[in-house]
């Protein structure tokens, strides 16, 4: 780089640029927080949905599945599983694990109570109603 462009100029771009764009992120975040209630339908977060999220987290479901596309890529997307399969199927599926089919990917038996199963379904149903800008492209997730 040429001699006219000095280290202190480079340093100023670093400090100034970083500070500016961090403030922009904060401003956009502020705006996002104003808009989100219309997109996440938080009025529908019932105690069951809250408990369902806890069940989801305590069993590390994200270690195999994706949820709105984030997580592990070993097992199906579950953000839209309520629409794809329905609540009853989800419950009976979890209860019947593992399939023990030789060579197939296996899901552990988590020994969830009926209450936990209902909460999980409530959480997945609410998740499926978030406005995700039409993602995923189709029902298969």
């Amino acid at each position, binding site marked *: *780089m040429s001699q006219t462009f000095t280290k202190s100029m480079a340093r100023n771009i670093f400090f100034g*640029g970083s500070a500016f*764009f*961090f403030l922009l992120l904060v401003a956009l975040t502020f705006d996002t927080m104003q808009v989100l209630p219309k997109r996440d339908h938080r009025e529908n977060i019932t105690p069951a949905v809250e408990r369902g999220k806890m069940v989801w987290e305590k069993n590390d*479901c994200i*270690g195999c599945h994706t949820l*709105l596309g*984030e997580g592990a890529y070993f097992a*199906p997307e579950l953000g839209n599983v309520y629409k794809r399969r329905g609540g009853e199927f989800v419950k009976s599926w979890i209860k019947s694990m593992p399939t023990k089919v030789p060579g197939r990917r296996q899901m*552990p038996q988590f020994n969830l109570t009926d209450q936990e199963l209902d909460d999980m379904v409530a959480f997945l149903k609410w998740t499926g109603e978030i406005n995700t800008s039409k993602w995923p492209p189709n029902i298969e997730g």
Partner: protein
Amino acid sequence: MQYQSQKVAMPYFIAAIGLFTGQILFGLIMGLQYVMGDFLFPAIPFNVARMVHTNLLIVWLLFGFMGAAYYMIPEETESELFSPKLALLMFWIFLVAGALTIVGYLLVPYAGLAQMTFNDLWPTMGREFLEQPLPTKLGIVVVALAFLFNISMTILKGRKTSIALVLLMGLWGLAVFFLFSFYNPSNLVLDKYFWWWTVHLWVEGVWELILGSLLAFVLIKVTGVDREIIEKWLYIIVAMTLITGIIGTGHHYYWIGTPEYWQWFGSVFSALEPIPFFMMTVFAFNMVNRRRREHPNKAATLWALGTGVMAFLGAGVWGFLHTLAPVNFYTHGTQITAAHGHMAFYGAYVMVVLTIISYAMPMMRGRAANSEKAQVMEMWAFWLMTVSIVFITLFLTAAGILQVWLQRVSETPLGFMATQDQVTLFYWLREISGVIFLIGLIVYIASFFVEGETKEAA
């Protein structure tokens, strides 16, 4: 080695390499579970193996960063570490806490672990990469604060270079943004939004400051190029990193419930994210070409050049591949993401830690460089690991393209598992590449034990 206290870096580097080995072994287990679904089931279910694989990666890179800081800061500040004893104490605390966490993952069902570690009081577990129990998370904060105190005090009493300053900012940023891991609202959208403030602002933000300063430090040492020139490059690179990367966070806000303007912000800014990585490549080659000395440590120079190239390919090119919103609509959460993740982490962070280890370890063992024989072996390891990560990435990319086509683009989309069955061949090829990576790692470790004629460190 000019300062006695630099030597505390050694246990950090040894632990890093040990945990790296564990990470690779669990990666191979997972790779096999992709094609032999019931392998090691129910002893080690996939989610447990993945937690161990990714958490080991994070922890060993942190060991690497801390070791690097302890080695670099005395030389940069021209003074001994504020407290080598504190550094050693923190090493043992971090190692024991890390080991207990991994053992916990492997021996206790995760829900039980959550129960045992008071997750009900303050739920933070069960989120990708932040699976650590609450006591471990608190332990990370304590270790990080003690470490930052030690490093900051050393810098305060010594010479203040730009490399030390950028490194310090990166490390403080790392600690500050980790605090978002303690925020876990019951609203999934908010949870995800701020989860990225740890994850994205780490790997595409403050970690790159650490990466840049490590690379700049080694380049000064092996090329002898004037510090003014190297530090000017460093500032420009990290400036571009944060200018593009901070708003680049938006590429995670396309499909998680966040407003649609993020598709514009995310696409535009993350399309620019390859620029700092490209500059890093140019920087590394430029400095080596303009070198004013022939440093005997050829292996360290190779790692430094490799970091530039592979970080650009993995983070820059493979990131750009799926970062534009209309493309990401189809690729989000597929094997394309996995392909990018593997090459980006290896190219940027694994390689830069191995660069500083390659430079610093011989110094701490009292020589300017390892013997010719040991270096040749280390360079073999470089090529074996680097070429196999390229192939892992290519095979996962192929799997990902097929997956997107069959499951997302097709008029008659297949289900997830039916799609997975169609791409098995690529998972097998990835696993074979993974075995070659492990061989490379074994050669790498073996290179530390090769004797031969060496010169005293200057």
